[in-house]
């Protein structure tokens, strides 16, 4: 198994190629290789593991709507970690804005940027002064 730890924020820091800043992109994807117990859990995990750091706001919005829909359908609950995948309010699916707003407020969510992620300093187009 190649499992990540979403409770270790330092593991999810990358460079923004546009600015050279370090950005926390959240557990995207949380794991590279995982095992689950049931086909239902697999459906939900598949949706979550499609999330990646260089999603556009449109793509992230679609993926989150899939994740929420599958989680409600197969697990019977809203996902508990949505606040980790929302970078700006544009990432929130339009039909779920109110539900997300409540969850984000409860988790003290702060807006971040949508970066152009890279791990390679040589890929940064503008070096920090």
């Amino acid at each position, binding site marked *: 198994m190649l499992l990540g730890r979403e409770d270790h924020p330092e593991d999810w820091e990358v460079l923004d190629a546009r600015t050279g800043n370090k950005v926390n992109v959240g557990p995207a994807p949380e794991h590279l290789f995982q095992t*689950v117990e049931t086909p239902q859990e697999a459906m939900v995990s598949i949706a979550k593991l499609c999330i990646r750091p260089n999603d556009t706001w449109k793509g992230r919005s679609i993926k989150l709507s899939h994740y929420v829909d599958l989680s409600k359908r197969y697990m019977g609950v809203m996902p508990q970690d949505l606040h980790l995948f929302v970078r700006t309010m544009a990432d929130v699916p339009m039909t779920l804005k109110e539900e997300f707003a409540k969850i984000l407020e409860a988790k003290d969510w702060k807006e971040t940027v949508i970066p152009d992620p890279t791990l390679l300093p040589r890929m940064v187009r503008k070096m920090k002064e």
Partner: protein
Amino acid sequence: MVGEFLKRGYQPAGFMSAMDIGQRIVDPTWQGIDGKGHPDLVLLVGLPYYMESLLLSGLKHFAPDLKTMTLDNLFHPHASWSFPNATLEEWAANLTVMTSKFNGGN
């Protein structure tokens, strides 16, 4: 699985994938789902046998101070405590005896 508990009126304290839990338990700095300290006893029930066996093997090797207990109807050699192989009727009877000792007996 969580949905099934909720339908039957139970409120889980938290939930995550079994592999996630196994990974965190072997980390001695992890303070538990509630943040109140590293667990010292892990109870496993209802996982697919091969998955539970692998989890228990990992916990045995990488968390040797941890006690593990399984409540399934199949014997798990990697667990600290395990039920023996039993029929479903014997298993149900054993679980009923155990739960009758708890408060409420349900």
